[in-house]
């Protein structure tokens, strides 16, 4: 790293670190949903990125509808989060009923079927919204940036997404570990037959779990619109990374998922500065794969007597 002074390096790390935080936020929001779906139901949802895109298009439509109202953009940005969640939730609910429920216990087959689903959904987006990317107007108060020193510049939308991510993560934690629903979900994961026997409607639990996972992807989509424009295939760009995040974190572990999203996003972001995007991605992916081989159970292993 010759040619950079210590001060430069610090600034680079801080700025790239913050750039990484936006990436981290989107990755984590995506991965949370996927981790719930994979961790709890062993379903490989290859169409997860498309549920994110549903959320993104939902916020796009919403902002279009509210455009003419006074302060419409401001309301739209806030309202987009529940609307995006709901849109993706409903879509997920339907998909579970139509497709996923027939494929439990066949994880490799869900992978193929949801890949097909992803292709269909992408085409659906293209027909409905066109192949060109659309963007959502961002209100002024999200446009500026925060400058603690001369050379450090942190965009506010990034901070907002961070905040959102923290809130959603906390909500997921509460849902899984503190709510009645979460208890049922965890029961079903641990022992499906027994859960059924003690009166848990496991089918309903599955459907809700899947739908909520998709709903969180929808929120990721809403967040995504504030930092980037959305196209029909935007979601598929993230799917491989997201899967690696879930696997790397150790399926079924919330802490693991957070830690792995953070390290992957940061590694990529910092390396990007020194070697360019594509090599940074190659190195990040390879590193994750190698670590996974050394520690196949992921960062945080589930503790079960086997």
């Amino acid at each position: 790293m010759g040619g950079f002074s210590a001060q430069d390096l610090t600034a680079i790390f801080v700025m790239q670190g913050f750039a990484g935080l936006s990436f981290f936020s989107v990755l984590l929001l995506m991965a949370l949903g996927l981790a719930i779906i994979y961790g709890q139901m062993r379903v490989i949802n290859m169409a997860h990125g498309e549920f994110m895109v549903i959320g993104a298009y939902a916020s796009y439509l919403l902002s279009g509808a509210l455009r003419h109202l006074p302060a419409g953009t401001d309301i739209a940005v806030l309202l987009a989060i529940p609307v995006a969640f709901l849109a993706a939730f409903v879509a997920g609910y339907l998909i579970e009923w139509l497709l996923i429920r027939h494929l439990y216990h066949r994880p490799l087959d869900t992978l193929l079927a949801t890949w097909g689903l992803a292709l269909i959904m992408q085409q659906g987006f293209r027909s409905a919204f066109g192949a060109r990317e659309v963007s959502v107007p961002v209100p002024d108060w999200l446009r500026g940036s925060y400058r603690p020193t001369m050379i450090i510049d942190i965009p506010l939308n990034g901070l907002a997404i961070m905040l959102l991510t923290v809130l959603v993560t906390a909500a997921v934690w509460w849902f899984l570990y503190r709510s009645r629903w979460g208890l049922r979900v965890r029961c079903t994961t641990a022992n499906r037959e027994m859960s059924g026997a003690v009166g848990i409607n496991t089918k309903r639990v599955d459907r809700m779990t899947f739908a909520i996972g998709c709903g969180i992807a929808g929120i990721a989509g809403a967040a995504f619109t504030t930092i980037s424009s959305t196209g029909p295939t935007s979601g598929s760009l993230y799917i491989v990374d997201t899967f690696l995040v879930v696997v790397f974190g150790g399926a079924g572990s919330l802490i693991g998922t957070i830690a792995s999203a953070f390290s992957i996003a940061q590694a990529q972001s910092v390396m990007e500065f020194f070697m360019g995007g594509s090599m940074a991605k190659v190195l990040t992916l390879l590193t994750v794969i190698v670590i996974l081989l050394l520690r196949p159970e992921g960062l945080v292993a589930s503790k079960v007597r086997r």
Partner: protein
Amino acid sequence: MSSNTDFLLAIEDLTVSFDGFKAIEGLSFYMDKNELRVVIGPNGAGKTTLLDLICGKTRATEGSIKFKGKELTRMSEHRIVWEGVGRKFQNPSIYEGLTVFDNLEASYPRGRGVFGALAFKRDEEVVERIRQVAREIQLDDKLEQEAGLLSHGQKQWLEIGMLLIQDPELLLLDEPVAGMSLSERLETAQLLKTIAKGRSVVVIEHDMAFVKSLGGKVTVLHQGKILAEGAMEALQQDRRVIDVYLGH
């Protein structure tokens, strides 16, 4: 140098902990050649874990397992099989889609490497050996039947047969009569006695009548430790055994 070498199987100070919980703790266990040993104990006593440790399915945290003087704790599972340890699982674990014959052939101890398996030929010797084992487990008239269609008891026997064909020196049987009818139990007891000639057998069992019918020394496990050891008749008088397991 130690007396270990006299035993076929010598387990010393064996401990395995799952994230702090010790399923087996400081256990020492010895077996002679040609011995039939029954392991009993309440649920969660560590019986299945003990078998898992011997056959390499679970790895010990501490301690040693010596089989014919060789350390097993770091040996890979298939090597342990090659050394002569056969393991039967609690639920019948057979290849349901294959015929009884194919099941037995798949366990035949030749062609165990990739290239050995590719070059494997079904010759007279193989067929003869398979027939012989099939007679022992009373499935010689069902060789061409699909294994998935066998009765529960027959599946258990088939799995035992799949181990017998490898002629192991130590056979580990996890509840071989679970889910069997009374007549099947009697036949299995007979089968086990035949099998036990010329090799050592460890049987985990819950059914006291069956344990008695087997004869042989009994080890009582409780909370990952050995509570008592001896003949069944003696153990039935043992206060501690009655308290934790047999009941009053």
